[in-house]
């Protein structure tokens, strides 16, 4: 599997066409309203060629790059969870029949999707959601269906964003597993090309059928250098040593109030987070009142209603909600699912309107009283 191939830039279209011909909906990065988003793509002209993103706490800007890289950006506001665990999903329809009702479970048809441009931290995020949604005693059948019908074309990171900290979380910038094909984009005196590594039977099949040439040693070296460059330029770091115990012994730390004084409880961090899975169920009836639908929708622990039980909510203060979110991500998750809930993608920092930084808050809790 470790055989490396080379896909020239001008052959990238072949890869997309190949997947489309095979019945896959190809989803990849494209420009939309000043951001890189994930949508269905038809050709390489849909890719954000020559654009990079500049990210910092509460700030995201696109800029022209010096190169014509397809994958020069890092990550946008969206993650792949919108396809695997969509923001809204119909669970069932109930139809009134006299005094009773019939239940029709929504029988979802599988959609074969190829995700092109999955970052290593995003692969890690999928593995985290797998543990939550399909590896426990109860399985979300819709998630499993989408997951089993998805092909992962990963792209290793040659550039780190301003809010990235995958190195701290051990999730990047190179994908080690969880992909069908992993690409590393190379642009140098030898041209614009992709180093290709197959990571599954499907990946090997694709590489074989695309009849790609072997990579040279200098190609492999260039790929390693590009990834090392990303590693060395992480925008953020998070010291994870003993973080669970640290947070478990600091429920009353003053920093929670400090963070809460800045937090708007807007829930942006949970919407952009690729691992956040919390959902609610909404009931919708038609005008006759004879037909009801139940929909699962993304929810956020930052809303007051999230912890509502009769008589009032458990977490009424912003302090307790921020504490719940961060402690869940970095500590509870380890006890619940044997993994951190944070993959270091930096989205919660970038898309926080006031730039609250999980790495900075964790550092403050570690180093102050």
């Amino acid at each position, binding site marked *: 599997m470790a055989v490396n191939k080379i896909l020239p830039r001008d052959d990238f279209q072949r890869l997309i066409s*190949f997947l489309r011909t095979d*019945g896959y909906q190809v989803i990849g990065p494209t420009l939309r309203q000043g951001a890189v988003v994930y949508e269905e793509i038809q050709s390489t002209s849909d890719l954000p060629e020559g654009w990079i993103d500049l990210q910092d706490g509460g700030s995201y800007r696109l800029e022209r790059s010096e190169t014509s890289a397809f994958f020069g950006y890092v990550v946008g506001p969206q993650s792949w969870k919108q396809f695997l665990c969509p923001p809204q999903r119909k*669970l*069932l329809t*109930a139809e*009134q029949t006299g005094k*009773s*009702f019939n*239940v029709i*479970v*929504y*029988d979802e*048809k*599988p959609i*074969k999707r190829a995700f092109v441009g999955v970052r290593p931290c995003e692969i890690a995020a999928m593995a985290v959601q797998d543990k*939550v949604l399909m590896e*426990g*005693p*109860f399985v*979300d*059948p*819709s998630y499993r*269906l989408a997951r*089993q*019908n998805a*092909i992962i074309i990963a792209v290793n990171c040659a550039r780190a964003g301003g809010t990235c900290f995958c190195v701290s979380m051990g999730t990047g910038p190179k994908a080690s597993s969880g992909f069908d094909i992993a690409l590393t984009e190379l642009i140098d005196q030898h041209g614009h090309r992709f180093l290709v590594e197959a990571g599954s039977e*499907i990946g090997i*099949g*694709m590489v074989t*059928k695309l009849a790609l040439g072997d990579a040279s040693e200098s190609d492999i070296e260039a790929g390693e250098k590009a990834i090392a460059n990303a590693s060395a330029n992480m925008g953020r770091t998070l010291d994870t040593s003993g973080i669970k115990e640290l947070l*478990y012994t600091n*429920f009353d730390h003053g920093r929670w109030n400090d963070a809460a004084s800045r937090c708007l409880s807007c829930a942006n961090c949970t919407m952009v987070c690729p691992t956040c*899975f*919390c*959902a*609610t*169920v909404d*009931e919708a009836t038609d005008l006759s009142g004879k037909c*009801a639908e*139940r929909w*699962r929708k993304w*929810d956020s*622990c930052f809303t007051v209603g*999230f*912890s*509502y*039980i*009769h*008589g009032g909510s*458990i*977490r009424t*203060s912003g*302090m*307790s909600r921020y504490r719940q979110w961060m402690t*869940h991500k970095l*500590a*509870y998750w*380890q*006890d*619940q699912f044997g993994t951190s809930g944070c993959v270091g993608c930096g989205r919660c920092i970038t898309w926080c309107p006031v730039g609250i930084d999980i790495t900075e808050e964790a550092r403050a809790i570690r180093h102050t009283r």
Partner: protein
Amino acid sequence: MVARKAETLAVKGQVDPMSTAPFRITRVIKETQDTFSMELAPEASGERFSFSPGQFNMLYVFGVGEVPISISSDPTGQMPLVHTTRAVGAVTQAMWKLKAGDALGIRGPYGRGWPVEQALHNDVVIVAGGIGLAPLRPVIYSILADRDRFGRVVLLYGTRTPEDMLFRKELEKWRSRFDLEIHMTVDRATGSWRGNVGVVTTLIGRSPFDHQNCVAMVCGPEIMMRFTVLELQKRGVNDDRIFISMERNMKCGIGLCGHCQLGSSFACKDGPVYSFAEIKALFTKREM
């Protein structure tokens, strides 16, 4: 290219865990002025509804929504499935309006219930406040079905007024038994009440049980459980022998929606019953 085998959701034998099954309400019993019990039978003829004491179901009212409600019936199969509910929210108020013959959706049972097995050959102390008796009633049925294998059994029950007591006829019947010790108290005596007045914790000190060989099961408002635990600790009962049932928001009941998290646990699957030893670090913290 090798395409992955496609499958739809309706693969053989696989039921979406969020689906609900219609049950017919066969009888409604008004327990107090805002609390009622419903006897339920599955519309699809099937096996007896099997559950453990302390488990709950997600109850669905057509067109309104779904709520987690503990099961209050006999787990040994001597009676139909019963849920005892107080009408306090949108769904439970809609449920209050349902009559015998109407249907409800049910999925479950879910959660970890009371440690009846662990209580074998021990004294059992059951402390209930208000509607907290409902999830504990299955424990009493289980013990009575196998009475010889338990030590002394004490039920301490407190409500606001005598009118708020659940299952009154049954309580009277149980009080007349020699193998159950039942003490009741009210916060405020009304009408012809001649019994104890005061909070339920005042009954613990004078109850006959062996603090070293007992299991205590407590359900009621959090504040009542807090003081009950303190009294039990004063009597020398170890934290790992004290069990409490925690209430949290639940949307799915199966650990997928995140709402019911209590520390690193999900109240829906790791609870709702916890030993006090398991959650004491979180229990006295606010807004957890």
